[in-house]
């Protein structure tokens, strides 16, 4: 006797239905957007908010300008590239850490609280440290992106691996699977749905960290386009075209600033991190001097950062 499983009903497609019918589920979403834009426009027209609140037409105009100048496209490309690289690296590192945590339970128990603590640490808080280590560089952005997501990813991955029913592992070991074979053949496919949602969590962490870091410094990227920085005062359509700079310009020399800022002349930008200081100390075998230089650079960074804060005179 062979039992038959339930037959899945075959859904017939009506060929007469139009393309618009296929996208009917988008109608509520579009309607909400339209209403929101109208309300926004009315708020601006009636001057409810008053200060520095551009309307949809201003924003649309700025978007067109950005698009025409290819700044927006390049910003998106730069941010997505950083995001892709940073996200992939945090997936690899997170998977490695999660594997160690699950494979060696005592190690996992010991390290889990610390990883949880680091995960809740705001990723923006890593930026000063990263600036000291890597200077105003691409590495700093990547570092912040990775460190902002790797702990969340590793916790979520470890939880995903722990959801695998022990019975599957017993059955597989029984059939001769072991070690890496067992992990690839059973653990990973059994945990796959949880692993995917863990990766999604990692993606959102990475995204937030990167935009946060780009807000503080970057010459190309979405975070950098945010109004209120670099003296453009929210009028990005006035912003001159981005020049082909080989490396990021120091903040005070940014061509976006119309006039040089008031006050004492800021120190020069950081050209290097402690790796250079270390290399110099090796060549001169003078550790004390190297430490002094590093301390000076830290102080310089301090000043650069305080300079970057938005407490400057608006005009």
């Amino acid at each position, binding site marked *: *006797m*062979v*039992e038959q*499983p*339930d037959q899945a009903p075959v859904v017939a497609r009506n060929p007469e239905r139009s393309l618009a019918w296929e996208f009917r589920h988008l109608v509520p979403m579009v309607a909400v957007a339209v209403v929101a834009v109208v309300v926004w426009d009315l708020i601006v027209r009636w001057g409810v908010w008053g200060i520095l609140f551009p309307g949809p037409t201003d924003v649309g105009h700025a978007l067109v300008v950005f698009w025409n100048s290819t700044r927006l496209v390049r910003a998106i490309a730069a941010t997505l590239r950083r995001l892709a690289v940073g996200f992939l690296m945090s997936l690899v590192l997170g998977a490695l850490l999660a594997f160690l945590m699950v494979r060696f339970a005592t190690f996992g128990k010991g390290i889990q609280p610390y990883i949880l603590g680091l995960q809740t640490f705001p990723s923006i808080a890593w930026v000063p440290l990263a600036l000291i280590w890597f200077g105003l560089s691409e590495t700093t952005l990547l570092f912040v992106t990775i460190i902002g997501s790797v702990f969340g990813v590793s916790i979520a991955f470890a939880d995903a691996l722990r959801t695998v029913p022990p*019975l*599957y592992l*017993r*059955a*597989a*070991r*029984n*059939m*001769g*699977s072991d070690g890496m*074979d067992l992990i690839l*053949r*059973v653990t990973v*496919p*059994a945990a*796959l749905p949880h692993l995917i949602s863990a990766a999604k969590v990692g993606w959102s962490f990475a995204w937030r960290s990167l935009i946060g870091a780009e807000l503080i410094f970057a010459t190309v990227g979405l975070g950098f386009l945010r109004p209120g920085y670099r003296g453009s005062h929210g009028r990005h359509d006035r912003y001159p075209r981005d020049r082909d700079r080989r490396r990021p310009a120091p903040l005070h020399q940014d061509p976006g600033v119309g006039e040089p800022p008031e006050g004492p002349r800021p120190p020069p930008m950081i050209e290097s991190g402690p790796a250079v200081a270390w290399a110099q100390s090796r060549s001169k075998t003078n550790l004390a001097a190297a430490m002094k230089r590093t301390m000076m650079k830290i102080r310089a960074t301090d000043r650069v950062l305080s300079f970057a804060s938005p407490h400057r005179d608006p005009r």
Partner: protein
Amino acid sequence: MKGAALKLVMLGKRFKGKSGETEALRDVNLQIREGEFVTIVGPSGCGKSTLLSLVAGLEDATTGWVEMDGKRVHGPGADRIVVFQDAALFPWLDVTGNVEFGLRVARVPRRDRKERVARHLATVQLEKFAHARVHELSGGMKQRVALARALVLRPRVLLMDEPFAALDVQIREEMQSVVQDLWQRSGATTLFVTHDVREAAVLGDRIVVLSHRPGMVSQILENHAPRPRTLKDPAVEEVIRRSNEILKAEVQWSNNQTKLLL
């Protein structure tokens, strides 16, 4: 492939838990001939499943050891395959993927693999469901896939851990005849654990009755009724009656022990 002779020597197992140590098995001695069908019955919690895990090598014995053809067994191996109570099929694979799992692990070439999988699906009458997903199968079909997955590896010892406990009565009786048939064809030495005395009496050449915790061999009954057997054979009925008597005495004894302790 012929079955292997098994020898369990002073086999014991203790578990360390939060409420102290539990002794699941004590001093189990058992000799099983090549190709023999032995059933193991006992009250629940008497360590029947633990016994199978020890033979399979999925757990380490606290005392004693298991010998296969005179050689000590260490760790799990594809020569001793377990069929679990709830089949333990992998839901991310289809029926074919499940049946060929062990062959893939053993890196059997593709052509050989396909041929063996097809043959074993045919013996459990599931060739039409080769590409069905696990969740589309009924309980009885799942256990037949699990049987095919085990036998495709040509195990010398087949270990069955209450495989039909979750099935309804009709399917269970049908599966019992399937198992007898497959056992006769494969020649694998079979250890079949169940809490159902009737099932044990129908299937086993010998029926090992375990005592209440800690599990010890209480008595071994012989069953010489010719195969294929049914519940209505007089010889089977006699075995059922005697097993029930022993089990009743076991339960009574353990109840008295409890009373004495109180």
